[in-house]
């Protein structure tokens, strides 16, 4: 069934179709409608889940941790300051290897207060051990939640599905809502071997001395590396049933492109439009969308960038004192592989619109220059 859905409701439908059993969330703009819709779905009985009202995001994630540890499929959603408040327990969820799925509406951090799109909130949680997906459309949001549960429960890692504030969260798009029985076919009930169970009491997350700590962290890291393969496998299974696929990365005219634009999330759609226009003029421009950021798909990225001459990386974030985070990571993927100039543009912070003309300007900039040592702040007032 096709329906007009805003991104927030695509999140709720994704959680409902995945048959989330425990939902604990605390409202925050621009995520509030996710919680509202889920609360309504629970109240109406459409979604047979335990809806736990909590007093903060830290508690929301803690409740999800308890639920997942007891073997329930747990879901939450948050944004920005709320995600930051969860920080401590984000580490816990990953280190405890709990397959929790969370939607994060990408929003800037305060002060000054800003509720608009920016990726610093989720990128600041990069090293907590969560898988991170960045969605371009509301369809992708809904589908990714379902795929994420399947992957998470196979590799025992939590996943964060990121979507841009307002550009997706409050924008209605036509979304195909999968049939429940088809989702059930793809995603069987979660039934972990080891869980919190009064009849089989165990201590979870106990003391881990130096003798063993490193080994356990390496196992978490290996699970991430392994997840790259599992994500691809499950996307194939998903495609067989639903005829939609996304990939770790999405390559658009990359094969013969001289310049490749690297994006994530909604800026991708604008860049896609620009690439199509340029192609009509015979200009060899390509686009690489990084959809999965953790685990970082090194091989896929290298494969996509093996022929190009220059790179334009657009970052809706800034790592203060360094540069845009995607640009930095793309450079690390190229190390020892290819030496191509990377033009890292910091753009669209705090929800500032990045339009076709902006992308045109960035590509022009890259065409004219051979090298840029530092990141380029795009559209900054003179």
């Amino acid at each position, binding site marked *: 069934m096709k329906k007009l859905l805003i991104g927030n409701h695509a999140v709720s439908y994704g959680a409902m179709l995945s048959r989330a059993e425990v939902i604990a969330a605390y409202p925050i703009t621009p995520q509030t409608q996710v919680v509202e819709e889920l609360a309504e779905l629970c109240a109406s009985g459409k979604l047979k889940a335990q809806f736990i009202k909590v007093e903060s995001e830290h508690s929301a994630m803690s409740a999800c941790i308890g639920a997942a540890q007891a073997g329930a499929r747990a879901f939450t959603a948050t944004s920005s300051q709320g995600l930051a408040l969860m920080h401590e327990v984000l580490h816990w969820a990953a280190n405890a290897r709990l397959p929790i799925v969370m939607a994060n509406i990408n929003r800037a951090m305060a002060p000054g207060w800003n509720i608009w799109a920016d990726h610093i909130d989720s990128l600041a949680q990069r090293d907590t051990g969560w898988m991170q997906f960045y969605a371009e459309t509301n369809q992708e949001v809904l589908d990714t939640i379902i795929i994420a549960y399947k992957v998470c429960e196979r590799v*025992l890692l939590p996943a964060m599905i990121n979507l841009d504030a307002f550009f997706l969260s409050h924008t209605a798009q036509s979304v195909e809502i999968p049939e429940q029985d088809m989702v059930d076919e793809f995603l069987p009930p979660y039934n972990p071997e080891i869980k919190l169970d009064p009849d089989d*009491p*165990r*201590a*979870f997350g106990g003391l*881990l001395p130096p003798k*063993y700590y490193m080994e356990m962290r390496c196992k978490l890291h290996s699970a991430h590396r392994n997840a790259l393969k599992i994500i691809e496998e499950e996307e194939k299974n998903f495609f067989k049933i639903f005829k939609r696929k996304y990939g770790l990365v999405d390559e658009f005219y990359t094969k013969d492109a001289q310049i490749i634009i690297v994006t994530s999330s909604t800026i991708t759609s604008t860049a896609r439009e620009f690439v199509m226009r340029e192609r009509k003029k015979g200009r060899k421009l390509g686009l690489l969308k990084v959809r999965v950021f953790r685990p970082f798909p090194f091989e896929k990225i290298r494969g996509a960038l093996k022929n190009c001459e220059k790179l334009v990386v657009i970052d809706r974030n800034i790592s203060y004192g360094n540069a845009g985070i995607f640009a930095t990571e793309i450079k690390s993927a190229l190390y020892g592989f290819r030496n191509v100039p990377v033009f890292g543009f910091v753009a669209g912070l705090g929800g500032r619109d990045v339009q076709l003309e902006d992308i045109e300007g960035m590509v022009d900039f890259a065409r004219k220059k051979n090298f840029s040592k530092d990141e380029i702040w795009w559209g900054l007032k003179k």
Partner: protein
Amino acid sequence: MKENQKLPEIVVSSGSMKINKTGSWRNLRPEIDYSKCIRCMICWKFCPDACIKINKEGIKLAPRENLKKEPAPEIDYDYCKGCGICAEECPAKCIAMLKEKK
């Protein structure tokens, strides 16, 4: 098999808490005076170590006849750490914290 491969993916005990009786850490010992206990189970709810059990049969000593058959709290001294939260929360003030003899 290599040692690393033998390690589990998850930091979890094999149920060793059944043998590891952590009640031995206790310095103060809660004792319920059942002649005053109104069976409200607030102590059960508050115990952070989940070591107050519910005795469904009831306990003969009770402030009122009708309470004798009600489920009653029973402290599991194998695990009680003596934190005193139950005594603090008990509305009937019938839990005494006594010095533990070691």
